[in-house]
């Protein structure tokens, strides 16, 4: 029995790092190759040794697909391809290929900052890895090999994020990666056609939440920034290089313009230009509004947001600064934080998730006395705010996507077990499909019914057509023939042709049945009674009384005989051919009910 097998190495009931193995139609595909930011040792990478033990990964995997540029989806890729030794193809969209190296370099910087270069990938490795990438366009069917094909769909979430359909023969799996079903200020909503995959693997980060309207969150954010700036405070927004940062920039830019605010907004480390470059390059990936207005005004060319210089942090008066990295664990954002933390007029807004151990995590959990290098203690007096701007589909969005794709079954990843459980029930109830939620290392096996192509002989088709019925896709018809399996080909031919081709003789198969009738009359008379009864009941059939006393209905033969022991009982011998099996059974059951009392 063919089957689809799915084993998450990461993202199975967690949101740490995505890495999911899928076997479909004899092909093995790895979906995402993410890194866990919470670990500093090898546990940050998925444990690939489970895949093949001692074998070569390149021989085992047919391809790797990366859904988007976030490190929890692509961060282990250089390690996987340049250090573990995977040498096969890697697929991702064009924007993902362009932006991936920037984030990987960013992460490398932090890793080197912490531990030096030891046991971590180098810039050259990142480049060599990116050279193995085959970039794909949206809705382009890419042939990985003769049997395996993939196709990307728009996923929203971040620039270049895609869902992927993986198809082998008639079997298919759709992997959503991270996606967003509502458009935001710079990206559109995820979309997929009614592709009816055997399995939909979907993220479920917000599996139980119907997110409060985005507008509310945005208004809240703007209000907080505005208040801080009005009271003369400085606002720090730690961000990662690309992604949510651009969304927040557009938000602030528009607000500043509308409110005619004068406080400066800065964006650190030259990323504005870089981001600008990529958004220009991949403008088709942004939402409709941005694309439309692009000719008159590029939304990413900001009027109010300027490049930050380290010296600006000491300037008097209010300001807003976007600085990297996003979790306040090193570099410029941490430096600014240390400088501003002591003043209660200032504010830090964390727009995303922070892993344990980072300063970001500590202040979000309410810690206000932080130990810094050299046993110094930093007292945090500034206001600390958390506003999640990560763009994932909420429960409603996930249900919407399931409805759109109409899968035969659903598998949840990238979420918490408890929330998955809730969504799983909801999906099973509403769509009547099975829903799975494997933990990391657990394999889900789905049997699939393969569609096997069968050739049909012209003769058989012609004969069918001769009956005057034209083929109609909506009205399936029964067609009798003989299925010949030869040289791993299947052909349906007429029975005569099959006999001829295979050099076989035809055998007649007849069914017989005995029906006991209570009738003291002679056999001949019983036969006549049977004849007249059948003649009156089976008006559409040809019923005959033959000279030898037997009765026929089409090919069915009925003979009456005396019972050897009971003279008051007659035995009817009924026999029919295989072709008239239906009529034969019907007739037997008729006779078993007995004959009507003679009118005489």
């Amino acid at each position, binding site marked *: 029995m063919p089957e689809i097998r799915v084993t998450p190495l990461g993202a199975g009931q967690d949101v740490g790092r995505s890495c999911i193995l899928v076997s479909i139609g004899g092909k093995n595909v790895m979906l995402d190759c993410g890194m866990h930011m919470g670990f500093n040792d090898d546990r940050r990478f998925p444990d690939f040794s489970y895949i093949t033990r001692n074998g070569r990964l390149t021989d085992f995997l047919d391809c790797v697909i990366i859904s988007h540029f976030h490190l929890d989806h692509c961060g282990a890729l250089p390690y996987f391809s340049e250090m573990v030794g995977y*040498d096969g193809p890697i697929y991702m969209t064009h924007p993902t290929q362009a932006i991936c190296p920037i984030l990987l370099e960013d992460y490398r910087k932090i890793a080197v900052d912490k531990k030096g270069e030891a046991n971590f990938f180098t810039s050259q490795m990142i480049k060599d890895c990116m050279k193995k990438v085959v970039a794909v366009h949206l809705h382009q069917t890419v042939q990985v090999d003769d049997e395996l094909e993939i196709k990307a769909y728009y996923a929203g979430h971040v620039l270049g994020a895609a869902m992927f359909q993986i198809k082998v023969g008639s079997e298919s799996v759709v992997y959503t990666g991270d996606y967003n079903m509502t458009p935001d200020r710079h990206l559109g909503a995820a979309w997929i056609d009614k592709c009816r995959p055997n399995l939909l693997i979907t993220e479920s980060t917000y599996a139980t939440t119907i997110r409060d309207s985005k507008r509310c969150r945005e208004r809240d954010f703007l209000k907080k920034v505005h208040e801080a700036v009005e009271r003369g405070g400085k606002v720090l927004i730690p961000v990662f290089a690309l992604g949510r940062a651009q969304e927040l920039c557009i938000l602030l830019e528009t607000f500043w313009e509308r409110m005619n605010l004068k406080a400066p907004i800065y964006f650190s480390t030259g990323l504005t230009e870089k981001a600008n470059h990529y958004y220009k390059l991949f403008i088709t990936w942004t939402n409709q509004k941005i694309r439309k207005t692009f000719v008159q005004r590029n939304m990413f060319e900001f009027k109010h947001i300027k490049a930050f210089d380290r010296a600006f942090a000491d300037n008097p008066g209010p300001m807003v600064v976007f600085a990297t990295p996003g979790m306040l664990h090193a570099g410029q954002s941490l430096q600014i934080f240390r400088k501003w933390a002591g003043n209660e007029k200032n504010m830090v807004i964390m727009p995303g998730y922070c892993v344990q151990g980072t300063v970001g995590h500590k202040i979000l959990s309410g810690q206000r006395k932080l130990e810094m290098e050299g046993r110094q203690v930093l007292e945090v007096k500034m206001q600390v705010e958390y506003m999640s701007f990560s763009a994932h589909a909420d429960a409603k969005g996930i249900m919407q996507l399931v409805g759109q794709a109409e899968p035969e079954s659903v598998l949840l990843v990238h979420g918490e077990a408890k929330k998955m459980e809730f969504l799983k029930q909801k999906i099973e109830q509403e769509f009547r499909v099975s829903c799975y939620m494997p933990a990391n290392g657990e394999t889900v096996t789905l049997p699939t019914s393969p569609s096997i192509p069968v050739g049909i002989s012209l003769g058989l088709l012609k004969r069918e057509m001769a009956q005057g019925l034209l083929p109609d896709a909506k009205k399936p018809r029964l067609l009798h023939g003989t299925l010949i399996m030869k040289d791993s080909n299947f052909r349906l031919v007429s029975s005569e042709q099959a006999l001829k081709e295979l050099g076989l003789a035809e055998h007649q198969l007849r069914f017989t049945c005995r029906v006991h009738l209570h009738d003291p009359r002679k056999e001949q008379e019983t036969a006549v009674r049977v004849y007249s009864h059948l003649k009156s009941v089976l008006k559409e059939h040809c019923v005959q009384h033959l000279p030898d006393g037997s009765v026929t209905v089409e090919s069915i033969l009925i003979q009456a005989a005396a019972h050897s022991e009971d003279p008051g009982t007659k035995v009817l011998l009924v026999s029919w051919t295989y072709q008239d099996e239906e009529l034969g059974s019907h007739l037997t059951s008729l006779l078993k009910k007995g004959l009507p009392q003679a009118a005489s």
Partner: protein
Amino acid sequence: MDPECSQLLPALCSVLADPRQPVADDTCLEKLLDWFKTITEAGSSLLLLQENPCLLGLLCHVLKPQDLSPRVLAFSLRLAGMLAAQEDCFQYLQGDSSLFVASAAGQLLVHILGLSLQGAAEGHPGLQTGDWPVCAQKIVSHIEESLRSAATPQITQALNVLTTTFGHCHNPWTQVLWVRLSPLVACLLEKDPVPAAHSLVDLLLSVARSSVLSSSSCGLWETLAQTLSHLSPTQAGPLALGILKLQECPQALRAQAFAVLLQPLTCVLEATAQAPGLLDSLDGTGGASVTVDTLLPSKAACVGLLCRTLAHLELLQPLPQRPSPWPQAPLLGATVTILRLCSGLATPTSDAGGHLCAFLVGCVRVQRAALDFLGTLSQGTGPRELVTRVFAVLLEYLTSPDSSPTVLKKAFQATFRWLQSSPETPGCSDLDPHAQLFLRELLPVLPKRLCSPCWEVRDSGLEFLTQMIGHWGGQAGFRRALLASEVPELTEQLLRDPESYVRASAVAAMGQLSSQGLRVTPASPEHPGGRQKSLLAELLRILSTDSEGFPRRAVMHVFTQWLRDGHADVAGDTERFVARVLQVASQDLDWEVRAQGLELALVFLEQTLGRPSSHCPYAVTPPVAAPPSPLAQALRPLCRVQLFEFAFRALFDCDRPVAQKSCDLLLFLRAQTASYSGPQGSGSVPEVASVEAALQRWQAGDQGQPLGYLEPEVVVAVLRSMDLEGLRGVLAESSDRVEKSPQSLLQDMLATVGALGEDEADCY
């Protein structure tokens, strides 16, 4: 455990035991286990429990049936296991649906087996399994049962447990175990298909590698030979490779294993009707050869088997224990043939050849594997005629418009390796005429690649070029051929490529070209009106304006190398050059550019202070070695290029590696100046104080005023007054020192309690 942590622990335990309190971050529990592990490894688990009764409380508490999160339950079980490992053994749990649990359970079984036999069987190597402790007997019969099972997953589990056992334990009892179990293992070979073949191979190799099992007595070699002939060609490959890697092994078995590896290539040669002489030497067995139809029946089978075979042979080639004589020539022939089949160049003369051709044509996977192997084969020699064919096929790949970017990259790599291995003409250290001829054909191909619409191809082309110049830049034949081609001009154009990776590679290549005097019309800064802009000016433009880090880093590498080598463009006015580069680098947003700036500063410093640079054994021009001079005079050039301002600023850089590098540089400088016995402390006091004050402001994060020109005496005084060692100590502490501390972990976990909203598991 330090007292701070001991105080925090009880509160944490009660949080963990409370099902209403969610644990925020899934990494916390892992890290907590790490910490407990270091504690138990350092001392007694019992002591840990006695000193922290809250731990025992937690373990007892989780045993009660309640709605505890699986995470906390798993954590508690692992903790319990860790603590108990010292005293007792554990029940085993196998057959879990999770790979991780099954694998952990398997490992646990191995440990228990080893532990239970430690005392009992060690003293009596003759002890039979019947006399083993009950626990060990139970495990053995469990394994036996699994091996007899009809379910492949169960067999796999049993084989994996045994593989780990023989891999880790080298005690005499393992021999007893093998003698008992090997008949059951052999039985697996009678099934068709052989179940869990991959794990079976792992097990047999693990046994064969074990030092305890003197295999002659155990019938191991027979089992191995039997397995080789029973497994499918794809499954047998890894076993064959493993056998050939063994240090000691019967010759007949090695021959059999090698024949298995060579079979697919023999098949290829046969199908393409190669000279029979080659075949004989390749197919060592001389037995009936296998046909393409049976060994390579379908495209998928053919591609898979050839890729694996080529990869196995690639691993085998460099090993000292590889088969001897090594059939270099037939292997070369087969690899070249495969490459020609893949590119559609070979014209098949037989049906079998036709099939192969249809399977392989355009197959990128096989092309990549074959090119990798071809590159490795450059380590050996081959007959002249074959080497000509190698170069021909490489040239075909480098020329063909059908070659994919990844294939081209491998073709470039293989080409470089073959050129490297071609013998040099005696006496003139130039490439041999053969390779020269090839180069003449190759260089016209390169421009096409440098103009490819694929950035990957342009980049691989430039990387290849840089390697070539580095290796043969000094050789006349190569120089002539290169200068006659369009390559140098095109490379220069690629300095403005839209792709930053390509710009970076072009910078590296141009740096090399210029160093070797291979730039088409070298222009110097003295002739700015020349047709060509000076390369130095162009690279400075990239350094100050390129929006991406990679090209700017590449420029800094080239500049550092130029300074080391005394490159003509630099040697003219070294001080001006260094001053300009440092000024631009100090403003750079990329930490690696700033770090490389310090590297360049160090080279300049070494040259100025007269210490010959240790980094450049190949320097064409000796470094500007100044004679020992009074301290002030020696430091003056460093002051003029504002090296100190650059280094002091870097000392307080927000990126730690930069600060560390600067600290090392200043310490080195202070050591250098200490040996000079010039007048000390002659710097005017107010100036020193103002510099010190500025440095303190910088340290506090204020990046305001520049220092301006500093007198050498002031620099020396400041250097001597600074606590550089202390600073180095702080910098050496990894920046995640706080992050990694157990105290921080406990505080974070406690702080998160109750602070979690509905969307606590957030992500990007």
